[in-house]
């Protein structure tokens, strides 16, 4: 029996007065793009979240209640994300929402969850510079992915970096950070190119790459564009030995869609790989494949979506309540043995501590880890602990 206030109330927690035996479920919202261009990535996140819910339910649920997911389609359209989030909170009165992929979709949901005092778990690496009281970020912030990746590139690949990205908030902000970082550390940005989302012809950019002869390429392209970029890069005769590419949005699933043959030898920075060697991951990968098919692969955002559900469960149980304010309060310091290693919620930023990993694409389409941060890195969404980042954020 939980107490509740209307503002955060969910259907089940209204039962403080009438302890009904019937109502033994708690509803949560799952809000990803199941149609439109982003569906290629987001459908798997829904799958991972549903799998986590199923596991938790099988193990007895949360606070004795079975979790009942309400799935909605964000349709790759940010206003739709806002509308569906509103529907989940106002109409269905869900206890929390798991959802989003693009930063734009998160920015659209943000005012909705804040105004309704709801809760959103966002599972994808992003550009930082944000900290909503109603959002938990289970993907990497910049200091857990981009910053270490650039450091690693400077050390192992060279000083001249070519930046290519899709034209939206994540790549733009990420590259602003990269510019500052390279400047401070003696690297050079030889060029910075953006293409519209969904762009498919990279010949001209590749000509520019050939002309500039950089030591490496830092790639923040998103979605379909990656396929075109890598295929055409290979056709132009540029191999990873000549100019390696470091990507931050290419995980195992994207590799399958691009074709291993063109990606082998390139790099990506993440917190988790399907090949990450932990006992938790072994079971996770096995379960995922058993449930969704041998040919499916896991990857960083999939893992981040999966652990989001568990972290929420832990927080709810620690709080002894589904109430948003209590869950938030209880969240600080919660640890979970995630497939990618132990993670911990940082209550102050509502991000999580994660291990950073650099991987190289192998012939089988999976990653070989070539470097990791050893310990979990404390999330620093505003990069306050980096001198060179001063002035990047206004907070």
């Amino acid at each position: 029996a939980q107490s509740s206030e209307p503002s955060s109330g969910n259907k089940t927690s209204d039962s403080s007065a009438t302890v009904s035996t019937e109502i033994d479920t708690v509803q949560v919202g799952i809000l990803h793009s199941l149609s439109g261009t982003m569906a290629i990535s987001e459908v798997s996140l829904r799958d991972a979240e549903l799998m986590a819910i199923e596991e938790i339910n099988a193990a007895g649920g949360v606070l004795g209640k079975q979790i009942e997911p309400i799935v909605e389609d964000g349709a790759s359209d940010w206003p739709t994300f806002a509308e569906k989030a509103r529907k989940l909170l106002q109409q269905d009165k869900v206890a929390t929402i798991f959802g989003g992929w693009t930063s734009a979709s998160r920015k659209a949901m943000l005012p909705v969850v804040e105004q309704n005092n709801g809760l959103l778990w966002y599972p994808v690496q992003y550009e930082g510079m944000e900290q909503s009281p109603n959002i938990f970020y289970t993907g990497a912030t910049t200091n857990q992915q981009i910053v270490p990746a650039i450091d690693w590139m400077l050390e192992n690949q060279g000083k001249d970096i070519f930046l290519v990205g899709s034209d939206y908030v994540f790549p733009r902000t990420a590259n602003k950070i990269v510019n500052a970082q390279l400047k401070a550390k003696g690297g050079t940005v030889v060029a910075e190119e953006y293409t519209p989302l969904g762009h498919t012809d990279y010949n001209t950019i590749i000509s520019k790459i050939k002309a500039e002869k950089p030591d490496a390429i830092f790639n923040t392209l998103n979605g379909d564009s990656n396929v075109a970029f890598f295929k055409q890069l290979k056709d132009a005769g540029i191999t990873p030995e000549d100019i390696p590419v470091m990507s931050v949005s290419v995980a195992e699933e994207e590799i399958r869609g691009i074709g291993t043959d063109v990606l082998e030898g390139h790099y990506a920075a993440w917190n988790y790989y399907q090949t990450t060697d932990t006992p938790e991951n072994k079971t996770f990968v096995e379960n995922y494949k058993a449930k969704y098919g041998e040919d499916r692969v896991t990857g960083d955002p999939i893992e981040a979506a999966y652990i989001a559900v568990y972290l929420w469960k832990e927080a709810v149980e620690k709080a002894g309540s589904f109430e948003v304010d209590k869950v938030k309060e209880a969240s600080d310091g919660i640890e979970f043995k995630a497939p990618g290693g132990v993670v911990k919620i940082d209550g102050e930023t509502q991000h999580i501590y994660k291990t950073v990993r650099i991987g190289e694409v192998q012939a089988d389409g999976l990653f070989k880890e070539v470097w990791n941060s050893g310990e979990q890195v404390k999330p620093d969404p505003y990069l306050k602990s980096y001198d060179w980042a001063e002035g990047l954020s206004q907070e």
Partner: protein
Amino acid sequence: MIKKYSQGAYYGVFFLMLLVAPLLLSEFRMGLLAKFLCFAIIAVGISLIWGFTGILSLGHGVFFGLGAYCMAMYLKLEASPSGIPDFMEWNGITEVPFVWTLFKNPVFAILAALLLPFIIAVVIGYFTFKNRIKGVFFSLISQAVVVVTVTLFIGGQHITGGTSGLTNFFTVFQVPLADPATKQTLYFVTVALLAIIMGVALLLTKSRFGRLLIAIRDGENRLRFLGYNPTFYKVFIYALSAAFAGVAGALFVLQVGIITPEMMGIIPSIEMVLWVAIGGRYSILGAAIGAILTNTAKSFLSESYPDFWTIFLGALFLIVVLYLPNGLAGLVEQLKMKFSKKEKVKEAKQSEADTLVS
């Protein structure tokens, strides 16, 4: 006479339903309905240019978006305590661009939401219509305008907010937007504006001007040889419908709280035309109802079948276009005809018999 009366009755029932709706709907559903009413305003404008004048614009999203952005800029400034919108800070902008400063003034923002689409439509319309670009050529040019606008808005993200668009507003005229009272007021304002716009549209179509629009649809070159310059008429009606879309955009932002470049894109622009096709392109009321019903169906389908709803929606579009070429309004008309026809046939038989006798 009877026809006029019955048409008035339809309108009466329609607005009566809109007025009692808040009593019956939950807060969320009412929010949705308010959004659909904004769409209905766009639909009325599209019916004017498409159904009556024969201009198929596949780029009305642009005008909707411009209206929405005008309003959103004002809201965003009001929601930025530091004076600089959050996304500009992320983009390292330290001073609000001049264009933005104008939108601090709500009156300017509202006027701009109305006039900017109008003016842009006048410019686009004047050149394309003067150069006698018609039919599908015009439709595809309007799509090209969409592509240019959307690409510019996404590319100019330091001043437009890029793909993410503008969102995270708190107040309008210092009143909290999330307040139920504000929402209710906005709803009634939308209903009132819809009524005004439908009224204007009706007046226009019932007048000689309306018949001229139909003449343009049937053969605008013919009209030139009767001493008219169809260009001005087309520009006017096109710009008017653009202004309607702009008004709808401004209302949309107030109630939905977000506008993105994709909302101006090709897909929404085509969907707008589909609402009108479903409702009945030759009927003002039909178009408005089409917008409301189609979007209701879309919401309902996507909530009930998140995995397959686009299949159902596609099938709905397909079936309506195939089997109801004049939309729901056409269907109603057909049914009415059926009833009255029976009587007419009887009459005709009677008169024929008379002539045979005489």
